[in-house]
Every structure is written in structure tokens, then in C-alpha cells.
């Protein structure tokens, strides 16, 4: 690290301002657009889908999540605070044993993880979980 103090203060201020206004709004729009692209703007129920993610993730690079939406034909995962909020879409085929999946995802800081299931009757179900991401120690 070769940051001077002045550079550091400048960067920190810029980052703080940017976080306070710019990307916050832009990202909210991004994730809304992405959700609408999947649901067509349909209403969503909150039951019938389970999303398991750690309340506090030790490292944002590798956050284990599980999602289960019995009967769903498709599940999409969003990380609302990531530069690109889409994470993955799981389309379950004829030989799927369940509409459940576990994976590991990246989270760029504390944010909401959102899972939306599309049911065969065209309805949608949604679950959200806030995940805090630990800021590392000295990192080494």
C-alpha cells in the first residue's frame, strides 16, 4: 500500500459521497429492472420460498446460500448491491428432484440477497435476506 494520507482521505471522501448518492439510487433501479425483466412486473407472494444465507458473511468473495421453492420451475437470485445484481438463474427440468439448490456467491459489501421463484401457474414468490459482510483484518 503506497497511499499517502492525503490520497487516502480524498479517496475515502469520494467513496463516502458516492455511496451516499450515486450508486445507491442507480443500483436500486438496476435491481428493480432486473426483477421486472424476470417477473414482467407481476405481484409476488412471500411464502413458499426459503432463502438461507448467513446473517454475517466472513468474506464477501464466497458466501454460501441455499434456496428452496417447492414446485418452482425456475429460481433467480439477485444481489441487490452488486454492480450487476443478477447472480444466477436456475431452470429446473423434468428430472429435477426438487426446486432447491445451494451455491456460493460474491457480495460487494452488506446488502440484500433476493430469490424469486417462478411457479408453473405463472405466479411468483420472493424471499429476501440481508447479509452483512465482514471487513477483513489486515488481509495479508
Amino acid at each position, binding site marked *: *500500500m503506497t497511499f499517502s494520507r492525503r490520497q487516502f482521505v480524498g479517496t475515502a471522501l469520494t467513496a463516502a459521497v458516492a455511496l451516499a448518492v450515486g450508486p445507491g439510487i442507480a443500483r436500486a433501479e438496476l435491481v428493480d429492472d432486473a426483477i421486472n425483466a424476470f417477473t414482467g412486473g407481476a405481484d409476488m407472494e412471500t411464502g413458499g420460498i426459503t432463502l438461507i444465507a*448467513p446473517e*454475517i*458473511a*466472513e*468474506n464477501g*468473495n*464466497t*458466501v*454460501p446460500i441455499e434456496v428452496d421453492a417447492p414446485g418452482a420451475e425456475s429460481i433467480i437470485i439477485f444481489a441487490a448491491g452488486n454492480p450487476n445484481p443478477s447472480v444466477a438463474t436456475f431452470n429446473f427440468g423434468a428430472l429435477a428432484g426438487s426446486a432447491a439448490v445451494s451455491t456460493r456467491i460474491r457480495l460487494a459489501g452488506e446488502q440484500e440477497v433476493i430469490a424469486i421463484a417462478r411457479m408453473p401457474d405463472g405466479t411468483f414468490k420472493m424471499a429476501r435476506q440481508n447479509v452483512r459482510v*465482514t*471487513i*477483513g*483484518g*489486515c*488481509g*495479508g
Partner: protein
Amino acid sequence: MVTIKKNRLGLMGGAAVAALAFAGTAMADIGDNESLVVNGEIEMVIETDPPEHLQGVFDRIYSGWVFRSDETQAMQADDFENPGMIFADQAREAFDTVMGSEGNSCATCHENPESLADVRSTYPVWDEEHGTVQTVELQVNECMTERMGAEPYGYDSQEMRNMSALISSVGRGRIINVAMDGPAQETWEQGREIYYTRYGLLELSCANCHEQNYGNNIRADHLSQGQINAFPAYRLRNAQLNSVHGRFRGCIRDTRAETFAVGSPEFVALELYVATRGNGLTVEGPSIRN
């Protein structure tokens, strides 16, 4: 485990340490009766009595696994969940591959990786022939250059970290028993000297963090005892295998010092010394760490 915090304030010296603000709140999961059994069969010693030379320093010694979150811990309990094992498997292919001018592979002399099961738990070790202390990596390169007529691996290269992960993986569960006496003693003492020397603009020694403040928070992370029984470690932060010397380099760099080089005599000595601080724990690598 309140006892380990009793001297904390008294031991802290210097503005740099105070500025880093070790927070004494969360004591990780120490002492909550967890256990680590890999693949349902390899039982790990995650805490035990300290080796003789650390009596009076630690009440207990702990594997770094103890300090990690439940999710991270779980990734190490099963080889399929552990991405580090992919790289050990890649080294298994290299093990059987002929390299160099002599027409030999590792398997020519060593039959299979499992025949090296006792290596990780006893290294670094005194090498009589060369009159020096050898790490696993130096030993691998000795084989490559002297027996196989091959180019050595880079000390911290992907190939070397993979091979180190393989050699560690076949020795998992063995009790660390690294010798510090006899001809290795001088190197061991040099390593101890380095361990307790404050480096860098922050004037921090290994001991400031890993002996005096393990279990405390550094920013939002838990400091471990800095044990190296579980290396190489697959770290979530860079999603790759990390070697012992790579980790040493990172620590010293973060004190804002010029670091020693990987494979340097200083780091070999430090590895020998730190390895003996873990005598009694078990070989865990490739492990999962933050």
C-alpha cells in the same frame, strides 16, 4: 477463556498497536466444544496443551479453524466442499508425470503420494546432506533438480502450492511433531528472534497480534494464534491456495515493512519456529481460511 485477556492492556506497547484498536469483544468460538472430523473419518486436534517451550505463554494452543465462522468451518469438513482439494488433485497428476532429463516422475521414487504421509507433520526438518533446514517446498525442488534433472518450481508458484497441498492432504490428521533441537536449534532460535522482532512502520512483531491478541478483533476479523499446521490454506479472500511463506510475507508487509522473500533463510527459520509452536495440533492442509 477469560484468562487469556488478562494481560492484554499491560502488554500493549506503542501508539501503533493502540491505533490498530484490537477490540476485545468477540472471542470467536474458542472453547465451545466444536470438533473437526474431515470426511467423517480424519479427526483433527483443534486445541490442545501447548508444547513445552510455550508453557507460560499459552494455556492452550488452537488451530486457526477455531477462529472461523460456522460456514467457513463447514467447507473444510468435507473434501468435496473444499476447493483446495481440486488443486491437490491437480498435483496428483503432476506427481505421476515424468519431468526433467532423468526420465523420472515423483512416483519413480515415492510410488504414490500416500507414501509421503509423514512429511508434512515433521517439516521443516534438518537436512544432513545439505547442512541446512529444509521446508517441504525446498525438498520438492531438491528432488526436481537433483534427482529428476528438471527445472525447479517457483517457491510460491501455483504448481508448488498444489504439490504442497497434495503432500499435506495425505498427512492430514497426523500430529505435528517438528524437531527444534540438535542441528536445527540454531535455525530455530533465529526463527524465534524474528517472531519477537517488531517490524515496519507499525512496529509490530508476530507476537503482538498472534500471541498477545489472538481471539480479539482486528477490524471485523478474529486474530488467530498464527498457527501454520493448516497450510497451504485456501483463502476465501483470494480464492486460491496460499503458502506459509506467502502468508508470512503478507503479515510483514502489513506492518508496512520491507518483507523477506519467500524461500529466504529468514522465512525458513521463521517457518521452523512457528511450526514448533503448533506441535500437538494436526496437519489440516489444504484448509479453508478467510
